[in-house]
């Protein structure tokens, strides 16, 4: 059964198109995370699913029901907002029970559901308080409780942890993961924090400029990014890039060289690429090795953390790279360093920005 299905979803404000045709299929029980830089349309997409934004084109199916023109309350969704959006004049009990009250649920059923949700979230002792008397983490719990009592087909989260401090964020992240396990419901989660995305998601959707860049499991996105954007966005610190020239193309191996790089043969799909083309080579900071080899750069800045060493490197072409080496290395700014890498770890991107992973 499809939990959620988006077909060529479009959204425009007058002339401006913000969602440019999104297709996505989410099976029941999946945890899907939308990530992307601010303004990429991830929140708009979530709000379209919620029914808070009109859909300009395409179809939205929730639990096999076409929902384009369905009111939010009838879509089988619940939403947790970034600022929690608790009703300040109601107690926690009334906040959680407001939706049930509007749906004219009998008082005893309502009471039972509220207490059940409070138990799941361990906030039974908070029920009589007003939101202003709660801490950030507690407010977050109430907001989630308000979603749980609706027993929705799909939970929607709009950057729910971004207002919490770092330590609490880690705790709540784990609790959300546990909640997902316990409830087994479909969850759609918007964040700009890729750690949240990597740790929570069954499936990540990377968005940029209103277009889906890639959909896949977190580790797949890390290891096999579909294009330059995803490669640069997923993974921290960011992937390093340099422009290189193709010397020869043999099936599944492209030999490249450049100002910053001695000749190297990289496993990649060479279809449509011919010698003389300019392509981009990407390599993650952690994949660089401190051995004499193919890259020489000037050390600009060194951060010695003990277990690893971060180096800001300036390549001959002027490109800046970040290198993370295992263990401690006593390097001085101004000196030079020799590096190499495992060719299988590098990724070649064509001039169109699309990754050429080996077939």
């Amino acid at each position, binding site marked *: 059964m499809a939990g959620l299905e988006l077909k060529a979803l479009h959204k425009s404000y007058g002339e401006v198109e913000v969602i440019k045709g999104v297709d996505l299929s989410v099976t029941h029980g999946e945890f899907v995370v939308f990530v992307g830089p601010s303004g990429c349309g991830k929140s708009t997409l979530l709000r379209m699913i919620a029914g808070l934004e*009109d859909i300009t084109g*395409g179809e939205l199916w929730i639990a096999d029901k076409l929902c*384009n023109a369905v009111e939010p309350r009838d879509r089988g969704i619940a939403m947790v907002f970034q600022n929690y959006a608790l009703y300040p004049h109601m107690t926690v009990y009334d906040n959680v029970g407001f939706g049930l009250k509007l749906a004219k649920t009998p008082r005893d059923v309502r009471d039972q559901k509220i207490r059940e949700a409070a138990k799941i979230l361990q906030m039974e002792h908070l029920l009589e308080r007003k939101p202003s008397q709660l801490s950030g983490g507690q407010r977050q719990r109430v907001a989630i409780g308000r979603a749980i009592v609706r027993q929705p087909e799909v939970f929607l989260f709009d950057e729910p942890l971004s207002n919490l401090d770092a330590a609490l964020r880690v705790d709540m992240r784990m609790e959300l993961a546990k909640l997902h396990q316990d409830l087994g419901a479909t969850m759609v989660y918007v964040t700009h924090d890729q750690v949240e995305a990597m740790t929570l998601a069954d499936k990540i959707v990377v968005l940029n400029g209103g277009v889906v860049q890639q959909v896949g499991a977190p580790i797949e996105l890390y290891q096999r990014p579909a294009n330059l954007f995803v490669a640069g966005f997923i993974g921290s610190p960011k992937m390093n890039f340099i422009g290189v020239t193709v010397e020869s193309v043999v099936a599944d191996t492209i030999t490249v060289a450049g100002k910053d790089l001695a000749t190297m043969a990289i496993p990649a799909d060479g279809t449509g690429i011919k010698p003389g083309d300019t392509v981009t080579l990407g390599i993650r900071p952690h994949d660089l090795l401190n051995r004499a080899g193919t890259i020489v750069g000037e050390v600009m800045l060194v951060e010695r953390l003990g277990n690893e060493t971060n180096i800001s490197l300036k390549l001959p072409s002027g490109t800046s790279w970040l290198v993370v080496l295992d263990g401690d290395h006593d390097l001085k700014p101004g000196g030079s360093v020799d590096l190499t890498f495992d060719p299988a770890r590098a990724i070649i991107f064509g001039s169109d920005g699309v990754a050429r992973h080996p077939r």
Partner: protein
Amino acid sequence: MAVMTETGTASAVPLPAMKRRSPYPGWFFLPAAIIYGVLFLLPTVASLYFSLTRWNLFSSTFIGFDNFAQFLREPFLIKGLVNTVIYAVVTSGLKVVLGLLLAVLLTSQIAARGYLRSVVFFPVLVSTVGVGITFTVLMHPTQGMINEGLALLGIKGPGWLVDPNLALFSVALVDVWKGVGLATVIYIAGIVAIPKDYYEAARIDGATSFQNFLYITLPLCRPATVTVIILSFIGGLRTFDLIWAMTRGGPGFASDTVASVIYKQYQAGFYGLSTAGNVVLFILIAVLVVPLTMLLNRREGHE
């Protein structure tokens, strides 16, 4: 029919955009719009027509701009027009100056601040008619308390409300007495909003308290000044109840304003002329207040 089959087939692939109901329904405007539209806007629009007529509520004869011509011809009507502008300028000017001074005083470390603020503000809430009647008694040339008090100091008080040259200004003074509290309170809000940093920086630069006032308080509470000017200027142009309670526009027509003329013409049954007075007041406000607002706000933008 054609449309129906078309949408029927179309829904299979590219669904037409369907609008849900807005959570902010337009009908929320309705009660207010009806009341405001019928009882305020409609008469305002109607006044544009009726001001061009000779009118007795049952029948109206179109007479073109005769009413307006009369307004510019009859000395007592012109007097009302001139008085209105004088009154507005005097009251708003005094309210700005006194309001600012009082506000500076009442935001300083003065003793009994709360009491003083209350005392200055309370007259704002008192019935205008009551204030008017009280001051009419107090301003009586021979038996009024004000002149009796002045006599104790050896000053011969003027005939506040009976001297044709003074009556309008006397009423304006009472208006200031009653309204300066609002100006003060607006200025206090403006002054309190000025960050303390500026004064501290100025103190390090060695500014005197007068320089503080001139170079920090005065320019930075400019929005309050704009508000006080506009508010009291409009109020001054529209003023009626105080004048009516104190002088009825007298002696003679010495303290008539457009608003009191409107009422007098209405009482006399000259409805067309009265309505023309309304339109004249409307035009007067538009002609004076709109450019004034633009001028004040533009200067603000330059700073």
